[in-house]
């Protein structure tokens, strides 16, 4: 039995971004106790740079696609897309975090290290081609997220958020794992391509009942991670309780990675049994949209509102998943990209508005923002319009592609219901705009200081990306379309 301990340089190169980030995170971890209270800013800079370098490495690695480490991971267009996406989300998160942490007097290198680790986990998730790999990546990402959610350890809401996230997350992971175990048992493989092969093999004589049950168990795990109905309950509580920048990150990075892994599992391994999945996805997508949108109608806390909105958006992406097609995959990828920018942008504003102790997270705290900080208000308006799906913003094209994919797959009714849902959604996004633009600021509002450079940079970058994707969506979509076929 030839035993090959040594990975080839090529393999290492394909895994280089993760290695770089791990290295940097470890260094930060080590240096953290050695730096003084004022020297924490450098960790942000280091993380920022390392993420930039990792993005560059991912791009470089994409030039030489292929599997690595006994097919544990694959570097293809799809994984590169999501790698870059989660790293960009990380960059934006770091930008909006620095000032927040300083304000909360919790600035420390560990935060950045955790973000980096979480991103490593997500990168592994999106490129994993193996259920084990996928599971470990998922855990890396999740555990780091649990900690981040409870990062301000003296804050009750942080604790609660972390506990809920942790307990429910682990609970759902157990279901996922159980599903994996059964899949392993029935097919004999944990490699996605192998599973596909077995399922396609007409001679394998698989017991469909068990496979279905196993996929259902896995679905529970995935649906939980992407906060799809009926497993979305944790999201509002966790999002509301976690520190604002962390919420921004959680609603984007892990979600995008979870969707990526969901897509890959669905499209690669279980595409042969997609008939089984379809009604399930259909129902879940619809329920997710409905729950997210309708429940958001009654929210007064911006973070919680955005949490419900993110549930609703998960629902839209589920519609794309339901389509089971390259177009659907590409649509989901594009949507996640646009969603990343608009949502982090929105959270950047929330982070800015909230200020110390997150006291200002009620919708009414936005009153008259357009007069107090016109630029910030304009930015938030762009993000909200994009979330609503108004043309010339990324969100519009996202929805457009998704519903186009749904129609391609002949799911006219799902598309119609989805669009009507997005009309409902317009109501609560509008409400924020109403408060910003059409209500006068109340007298007892305290002075809003100018946003920090980081928040400004994040806001502008996100807004620019939102508008750019809204005008020239092909830039991303073409890429997504090309890479969508890789996961089949």
């Amino acid at each position, binding site marked *: 039995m030839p035993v090959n301990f040594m990975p080839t340089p090529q393999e290492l190169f394909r895994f280089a971004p993760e290695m770089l980030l791990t290295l940097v995170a470890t260094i930060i971890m080590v240096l953290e106790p050695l730096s003084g209270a004022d020297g924490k800013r450098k960790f942000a800079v280091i993380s920022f740079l390392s993420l930039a370098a990792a993005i560059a490495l991912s791009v470089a690695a994409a030039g030489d696609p292929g599997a690595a480490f006994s097919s544990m991971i694959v570097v293809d267009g799809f994984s590169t897309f999501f790698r870059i996406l989660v790293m960009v989300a990380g960059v934006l998160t770091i930008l909006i975090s620095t000032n927040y942490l300083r304000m909360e007097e919790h600035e420390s290198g560990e935060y950045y290290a955790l973000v980096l680790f979480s991103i490593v986990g997500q990168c592994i998730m999106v490129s994993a081609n193996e259920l084990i790999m996928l599971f470990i990546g998922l855990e890396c990402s999740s555990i780091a997220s649990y900690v981040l959610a409870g990062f301000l350890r003296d804050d009750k809401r942080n604790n609660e958020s972390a506990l809920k996230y942790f307990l429910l997350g682990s609970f759902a992971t157990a279901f996922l794992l159980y599903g994996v175990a059964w899949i392993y048992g029935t097919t004999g493989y944990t490699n996605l391509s192998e599973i596909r092969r077995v399922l396609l093999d007409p001679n394998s004589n698989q017991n469909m009942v068990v496979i279905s049950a196993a996929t259902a168990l896995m679905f529970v795990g995935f649906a939980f991670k992407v906060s799809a109905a009926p497993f979305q309950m944790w999201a509002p509580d966790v999002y509301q309780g976690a520190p604002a920048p962390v919420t921004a990150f959680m609603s984007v990075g892990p979600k995008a990675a979870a969707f990526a892994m969901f897509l890959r599992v669905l499209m690669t391994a279980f595409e042969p049994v997609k008939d089984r999945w379809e009604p399930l996805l259909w129902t879940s997508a619809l329920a997710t949209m409905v729950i997210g949108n309708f429940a958001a109608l009654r929210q007064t806390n911006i973070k919680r509102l955005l949490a419900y909105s993110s549930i609703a958006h998960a629902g839209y992406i589920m519609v794309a998943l339901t389509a089971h097609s390259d177009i659907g995959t590409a649509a989901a990828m594009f949507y996640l990209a646009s969603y990343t920018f608009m949502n982090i942008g929105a959270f950047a504003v929330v982070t800015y508005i909230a200020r110390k102790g997150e006291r200002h997270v009620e919708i009414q705290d936005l009153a008259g923002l*357009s*007069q107090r900080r*016109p630029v910030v208000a304009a930015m938030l308006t762009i993000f909200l*319009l994009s979330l*609503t799906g*108004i*043309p*010339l913003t990324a969100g*519009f094209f996202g929805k*457009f592609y998704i*519903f*186009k994919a749904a*129609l*391609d797959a002949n799911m*006219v009714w799902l*598309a*119609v219901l989805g*669009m*009507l849902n*997005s*009309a409902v959604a*317009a*109501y609560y996004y*509008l*409400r924020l*705009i*109403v408060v910003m*633009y*059409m*209500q006068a600021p109340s007298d007892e509002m305290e002075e809003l200081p100018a946003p920090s450079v980081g928040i400004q940079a994040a806001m502008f970058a996100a807004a620019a990306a939102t508008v750019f994707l809204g005008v*020239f*969506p*092909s830039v991303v*979509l*073409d890429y997504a*379309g090309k890479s969508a076929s890789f996961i089949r």
Partner: protein
Amino acid sequence: MNLLDILLIIPAAGFLLTLLLPKDNPALVRNFTLFVSLIAFVLSLGLIGPVQSNPGHMTFETNTQWIEYPSIRYHVGLDGLSLWLVILSTFLTPIVILVSWKYIQNRVKEFYAFLLALLFGVLGVFVALDLFLFFVFWEISLVPMYFLVGIWGHDKRIYAAVKFFLYTMAGSALMLIAIIYLYNKSGTFDMPLMLDMMQKGRLALNGTEGFWLFLAFFFAFAIKVPLFPLHTWLPDAHGEAPTAGSVMLASVLLKLGTYGLVRICLPLFGEAARQNAAWIIGLAITGIIYGALVAMVQPNMKRLVAYSSVSHLGFVVLGVFTFTQVGLDGAVYQMLNHGISTGALFILVGMLYERRHSLEIADYGGVGTSAPWLSTMFVITTLASVGLPLLNNFVGEFLVLQGAAQVNFLYAVFAAIGVILSSVYMLWMVQRTFYGETPSEVKHHVNDLSAREWAVLVPLIVMMVWMGIGSQSFLPAVSAQNAQILELMKKPAAKEVANAR
């Protein structure tokens, strides 16, 4: 890069530049936006000649790729149908900018910026030949209007703005689905291409598809028109919007709906349109009479005018769904007429509001004594609105009714009742507002027109007379394009007959 493209760019660029202007210099903002809108207007006049020389075809066409997949093209062009609507938009924009000169005193910059953005949106809708592009502009036009109503409106402005937005969103949601569905059927968003495919039999919609697609588009447009019973957003939006908003809403935005009906519903879904014409005409006529009756009893001027719009737009829909040359010409002409005369009515109501700060008719009376010219203008506009001959609305109403009579004489009978009622409510408002003894509040606050207001009103009055007498300056271009549309509606049926043989 032809004149039309430049015309589209100007308001967009104006919008962005306005945003860059200093916030604390409203005069600069006003002058700048006025300048921009005047340039747009002057340029748009340059469109007339080329289009009129070839009104049945697209002129100033630009067709370049915007997005590769799915193939979305920046395909714009102008024909006889859209020409006058484009000019109406550019014509009214400087006017509403002038109207708001004094009225808008807070957040001036945003206000004027939104006006330019609105112009951009509506121009885009009128010139887009790609369904997707059409939809994009359709939605873009929604946003500035939302802000105009929501920020600078009256007391219930937020409710009105949100209602307006959600109503339209609900409609456009379905339209988007239909657009995508069409794309999936045909592989293109390009309207002329689609029509061509239909003519050649390469794109055929079966009955059910045609019906649902038609309905999806129709629903979106009917909300915008607004057709009874989808009209309830209109009185609220009109009633609460600032003058400029009401004017643009009534004069231009409502036309998006009727324009869509003519531009998209008729040629693309001729068969379905024909099959559904009966109940749609029923709704249109109901709207005509209903709008008039409800307008009659409104105590608030703006709401009155708003309900009158419901009535007037009913005529347009009626004309469109007669599928006759006469009716269609009348409908399109009526769109323009309504734009001018109802716009002017809103401006005049706004002028009264600026003076007396009330929209309740009961708060007025005897304005004729203290502001004779204002009253004169108001009466002239009212008369135009009730369809007095030699003023603009008459021509449109005459043609629409003639077209209706051609299809079914009873349609004309019932629709003509609306004409009677329109004189009732309009004159009643005039009487209660301008005649009688002058209360002291009115006497002290309501003074006659200023030079700026003259500048606003005279062009409108001139247009009313011109369009009433010289309809030949406008109608031939419209007619030619409408003939094309009717021709397109006929073709598939003819083909079926051919296939049956």
